[in-house]
């Protein structure tokens, strides 16, 4: 399968990429690592007239420590994020989720920002992003703005990034010392989850001080399990306490029904996976 014909631009700066976006408007599509977009183009589910490749913009790659946050450049490949010691130390939930993301070849090529901007509700990074309160740095002709994770994911494959804007980096507030676990329930190991739960927990003397939980494929965007987070605060890190709190995982969600499972099955999965993820993250 071969994509429909398109023109190809490979700007070397964000400014040039923004200028190309402004010139071509709706006819253009940004390509990052292309691991989600190229299959879509090959199947001709989309046929942009112009492809703007961010692959030659070096400033979009890299990971740095910025005080209270770890900053991940949008074009940093998953394999780099997954093996980065800063990420492992301060945002372990990201490292754990990247381990489960697709397969080695896709992780070499796919990018952190590309996957988040794609906003597949079954994507592996959305759950950790909402759980950790990621901040999305978006650049346009008028400058740069920052959008929080709760506002970034708008709907199915839709984010707060405007048609004339580019996601440049993602700031992950440090969660140093928090336990983390990503539970992904799949039919085929390297594919999308039926449901995934990303949990990170701060335990203080056997008590769960704080818990943050993000879920994939429980709605049209990644969602927080806020009822569980509230129920866990101050509870002992025990199986009974976590089991009781996890029963509320599907509160406020609107999971889809498809060939892999109906909505009720996903609700069940969210409760089971939340219990497993929180227990493991709490070291219980």
């Amino acid at each position, binding site marked *: 399968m071969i994509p429909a014909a398109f023109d*190809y631009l490979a700007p070397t700066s964000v400014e040039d990429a923004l200028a190309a976006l402004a010139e071509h408007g709706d006819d253009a599509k940004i390509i990052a690592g292309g691991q989600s977009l190229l299959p879509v183009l090959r199947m001709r589910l989309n046929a942009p007239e112009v492809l703007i490749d961010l692959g030659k913009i070096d400033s979009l790659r890299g990971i740095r420590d910025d005080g209270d946050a770890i900053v991940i450049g949008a074009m940093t490949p998953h394999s780099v994020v997954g093996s980065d010691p800063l990420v492992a130390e301060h945002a372990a939930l990201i490292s754990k989720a990247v381990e489960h993301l697709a397969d*080695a*070849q896709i992780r070499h090529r796919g990018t952190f920002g590309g996957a988040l901007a794609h906003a597949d509700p079954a994507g592996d990074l959305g759950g950790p992003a909402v759980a950790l309160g990621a901040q999305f740095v978006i650049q346009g002709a008028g400058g740069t703005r920052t959008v929080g994770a709760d506002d970034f994911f708008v709907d199915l494959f839709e984010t707060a990034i405007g048609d004339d804007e580019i996601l440049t980096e993602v700031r992950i507030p440090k969660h140093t010392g928090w336990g983390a676990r990503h539970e992904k329930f799949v039919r085929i190991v390297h594919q999308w989850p039926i449901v995934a739960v990303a949990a990170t927990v701060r335990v203080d003397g056997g008590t769960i001080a704080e818990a943050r939980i993000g879920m994939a494929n429980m709605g049209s965007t990644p969602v927080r399990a806020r009822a569980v987070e509230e129920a866990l605060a101050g509870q002992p890190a025990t199986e009974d306490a976590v089991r009781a709190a996890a029963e509320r995982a599907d509160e406020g969600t609107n999971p889809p029904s498809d060939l892999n499972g109906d909505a009720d099955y996903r609700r069940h999965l969210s409760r089971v996976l939340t219990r497993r993820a929180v227990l493991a993250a709490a070291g219980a």
Partner: protein
Amino acid sequence: MTRITLTVDGAQVSDDVEPRMLLVQYLREKLGKTGTVIGCDTSNCGACTVHLNGTSVKSCNVLAVQADGAEVTTIEGLAEDGRLHPVQEAFRECHGLQCGFCTPGMIMQSVDLLKENPNPSEEEIRLGLEGNLCRCTGYHNIVRAVQHAAGQAVTS
């Protein structure tokens, strides 16, 4: 058409290509390197795996224009001076193939896996090859071949 210049299996090549041309098409149709095969055409099976700047990628999921300036190694570039690469040798020794269609991708991914983790456990080998599908062997002899190439006792 877009002009691209890259190194493939040690030789510099330069061509005008349509931007929509996939890297795997370029390798097979322009360069005649048919050792790299197209399996599923959906980026699932890994049969088309090559190395792009030293790491494994699925060449059906990369545009040829994205490989401009890059170094590509295919299954045809692994052997040196007529001697099989140790991973190729191990696949032959352990009978890590039956029909052979997945083999170019399996070997390229196994080379990448051993570069990142020279002494993998059996589980790490199976996980490292999760993006490569084989419909003949049940994977056992492939895992054995990787263990053999790593200089380990074969366990599976």
